[in-house]
């Protein structure tokens, strides 16, 4: 692709579209930038560089890159058309269990873009960023108050990064005591990141089964505990949407065995203002600012995963951390700099996701103590309303019990219909809803995990409930076609994931698709 010659947009399969263009009304087919742009075009007008003797030596680039450019109107159209192929919270209910797709206030976007936050450099002198450090201190204070914990590490970039932060602190604490422990307990309902994080640190994972009601019993934990166990990683409320009712006894047992209690805080949004992890005996917990505190998910990131710590783990908190130095705030950026501190190291360059800190702080200030508690209550109310409205037509793996912020269904109610959880989810797409989380957690057969969040009105929930009741009826009534062919009305029908994995095409190529080899 050189010069001005532009290839035609990819031809559409004619049988899939009733139109010449392949477009369907407002749904416009869009080729790749490599098929519409060319290397000579630019949508950015830059001055010519002044004459200067190059200091690049022999390393100046000789080979072409092959990057297409688009004029500004072409670029706008390209990305607006792409955007219209996405579902979004701003379009409708997005009931992904465990993901917390709540409203993202635009005031937060505006504030994060203030030059005083968005246009400051992480390494400019601390005397010129005192307001940023104030905001980080304020966020820390709110997070520790809400969780009842002693301190916080702000730098982790996402939930799994927070897990790594917390578990590394635990490992450092054991190392400091001269203890070699090699096992981490993880319930089978846990997020995949939990065992993956433990394994990254060289731990082996011992799985704990759930009891009949979907929670972990203190007896099961005690049976799995021994002198080789470093920690337990427990999600609370758990991924079945249930509060771990033995949690205080579990914490006691874990501590008695000389181990630490890591809590996966992905579901903290259910209990903000209702219970404090610090009162439950938790030693550290990550908080997904992109879940509980509404920073936008952005199609898969960026996230932010601050970790709160109990007193015993504070010495091991990674650098950088904030301190007060007279009237100034400072960041401690090197390991050996403070008395009584033994930081386990550094998790990332710079100081964390400042842009997310501003948004989360704006969210917290807006809600306040009362609003955050109300948000937790509404989230739990909405989930239970869905449960109560569907309990006669869908099945729940652990019986019909009060849930927290999300309700777990299984595929028992689909037995004999020929319709699978996946089919059921895809049929929701044709009805204009994003599917719930499917096939997670693994403890339920054909799991469907529904988290409405507090952002939904009753009318919105009623429509969703109406759709699910109709789908359940259709499945039981033998209308397989509605499910097997779904979705029919989305920008694409079901995609061939097997082909994608077996013959990977991971980039555009001018000649032939780059085939990935083992």
């Amino acid at each position: 692709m050189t010069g001005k010659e532009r290839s035609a947009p990819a031809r559409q399969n004619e049988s899939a579209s009733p139109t010449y263009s392949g477009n369907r009304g407002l749904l416009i087919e869009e080729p790749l930038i490599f098929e519409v742009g060319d290397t000579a075009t630019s949508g950015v007008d830059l001055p010519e560089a002044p004459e200067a003797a190059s200091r690049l030596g022999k390393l100046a680039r000789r080979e072409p890159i092959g990057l297409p450019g688009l004029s500004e109107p072409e670029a706008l159209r390209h990305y607006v058309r792409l955007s219209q192929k996405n579902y979004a919270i701003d379009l409708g209910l997005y009931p992904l269990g465990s993901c917390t797709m709540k409203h993202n206030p635009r005031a937060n976007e505006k504030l994060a873009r203030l030059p005083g936050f968005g246009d400051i450099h992480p390494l400019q002198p601390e005397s010129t960023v005192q307001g940023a450090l104030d905001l980080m201190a304020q966020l820390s204070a709110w997070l520790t108050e809400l969780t009842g914990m002693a301190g916080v590490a702000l730098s982790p970039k996402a939930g799994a990064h927070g897990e790594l932060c917390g578990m590394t602190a635990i490992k450092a604490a054991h190392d400091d005591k001269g203890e070699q422990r090699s096992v981490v307990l993880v319930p089978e309902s846990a997020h995949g990141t939990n065992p993956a994080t433990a394994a990254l640190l060289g731990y082996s994972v011992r799985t704990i089964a759930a009891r009949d009601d979907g929670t972990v019993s203190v007896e099961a934990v005690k049976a799995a505990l021994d002198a080789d166990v470093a920690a337990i990683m427990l999600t609370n409320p758990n991924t079945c949407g249930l509060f771990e009712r033995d949690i205080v006894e579990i914490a006691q047992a874990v501590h008695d065995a000389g181990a630490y209690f890591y809590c996966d805080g992905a579901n903290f949004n259910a209990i903000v203002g209702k219970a404090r992890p610090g009162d439950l005996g938790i030693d550290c917990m990550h908080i997904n600012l992109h879940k509980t505190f509404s920073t936008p998910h952005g199609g898969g990131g960026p996230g932010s995963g601050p970790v709160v710590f109990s007193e015993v783990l504070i010495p091991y908190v990674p650098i950088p951390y904030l301190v007060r130095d007279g009237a100034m705030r400072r960041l401690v950026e090197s390991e050996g700099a403070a008395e009584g501190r033994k930081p386990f190291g550094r998790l990332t360059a710079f100081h964390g996701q400042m842009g997310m800190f501003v948004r989360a702080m704006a969210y917290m200030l807006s809600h306040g103590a009362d609003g955050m508690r109300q948000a937790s209550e509404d989230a739990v109310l909405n989930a239970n309303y869905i449960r109560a409205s569907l309990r006669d037509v869908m099945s729940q793996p652990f019986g019909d019990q009060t849930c927290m912020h999300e309700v777990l269904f299984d595929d028992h109610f689909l037995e004999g219909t020929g319709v699978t959880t996946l089919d059921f989810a895809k049929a929701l797409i044709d009805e204009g809803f994003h599917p719930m989380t499917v096939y997670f957690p693994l403890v339920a057969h054909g799991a469907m995990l529904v988290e409405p969040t507090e952002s939904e009105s009753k009318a919105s929930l009623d429509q969703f409930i109406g759709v699910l009741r109709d789908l359940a009826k259709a499945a039981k009534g033998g209308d397989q076609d509605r499910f097997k062919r779904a979705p029919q009305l989305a920008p694409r029908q079901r995609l061939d994931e097997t082909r994608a994995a077996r013959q990977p095409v991971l980039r555009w190529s001018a000649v032939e698709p780059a085939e990935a080899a083992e």
Partner: protein
Amino acid sequence: MRYLPLSDADRQAMLARIGAASIDELFEGIPENVRMSGLPNLPLHAGEMDVERQLSKLAAKNLPASSLPFFVGCGAYKHHVPASVDHLIQRSEFLTSYTPYQPEIAQGTLQYLFEFQTQVALLTGMEVANASMYDGSTACGEAVLMAHRITRRSKAVLAGGLHPHYRAVVETLSRHSGHSVRALEPIPNGGSGEIIAGIDDETSCVVVQMPDYFGGLHDLTPIAAAAHERGALLIVAVTEVISLGALRSPGDMGADIVVAEGQSLGNGLNFGGPYVGLFATRAKYVRQMPGRICGETVDAAGRRGYVLTLSTREQHIRRERATSNICTNSGLCALAFTIHLSLLGEAGLRRLAELNHASAVGLADALSGIDGVELMTPEFFNEFTLRVPGNGAEIIERLAEKGVLGGVPVGRLEPDQPELHDLIIVAATEVTSEADIAAYRSALAEVLKHDR
């Protein structure tokens, strides 16, 4: 509360359907002795105007880069981002969507990720790239772990020119996952001899930054050859991605894995985050790559479409046997990157790179002409290191008092290397004006004169 749609009447009706007498009944699963009775000890809710006032007050205490002559770099750079980038990434369908796990209604995200992966592969001179990492430093840590997996060895050699924060991230991961690291001494304008001498038969990888964190340039081909001869991989870290528009690509010089900080394209400084990590490698290593990957396929009607693929590497499928624990990527920052790069195109990127280089050359000439100031990196792209007569951190602080943010003192990054504390790292980009350069020159001359 403006973000909560339920009315009290709704709540009562919903409780009635549930069969609960009160909301408290729904929270009875929390043991009573740990259930909070009162509110957290925090202020009550506030209106948008009030919140804006509170946070604007904090923002006003900071000195933004665009408000004064600004020369700070070292892993994050001040560039001009076209207005359409920020407009487009704030479209609801991009901003408020989740990871594209339901591809039929996420083709927008998936297609831009496919385009992003292609752009990253082209820029770095590699065959494949993933759908982004948290940032450059964590991508670097993951690259080292990947090299250990591929070579089944566990010793990494880090060049002295690797950004100290990146070095610390790799050391932290290695220290706690049972791997070893040999970090070479940081020396501005250090050669490749010491790096090559550091490679042995247990070495899984060599990590070299280009341009290095002092701003210096290196031909990586001898290092690549030496690494490959010993069965080790070459990992190249790039913290200024604009440099790839002007310099030979890492792939062209023999890199096996390239990681980069992509902030310079599309993303603001944001006090260090969120940014976007780039991760590219050779096709034969793709199944050892961490993070999400998007691939092309067809739908049931035969139309081209995209999905997340090769997910058997990932934690949600493979759990403790995954290649990484990573889940989140940096989707929206990757979108900003790919939009900015699509607007620039090859012609625009090359011109942007030329402008950056020309600014830095002008600045280096102006500053190294000051008595007692020495340019330590004869070859550089848009950043270089100066030796100044005195403590670099103090000089940078004095410059700030004069309204110039003059760069990064090496002492801040290397507190344990006192012999480097008279070095400052200075960056210039396309936003640097001649007036900025003149202001820096006179401020520095004044500060140094005063010191004598």
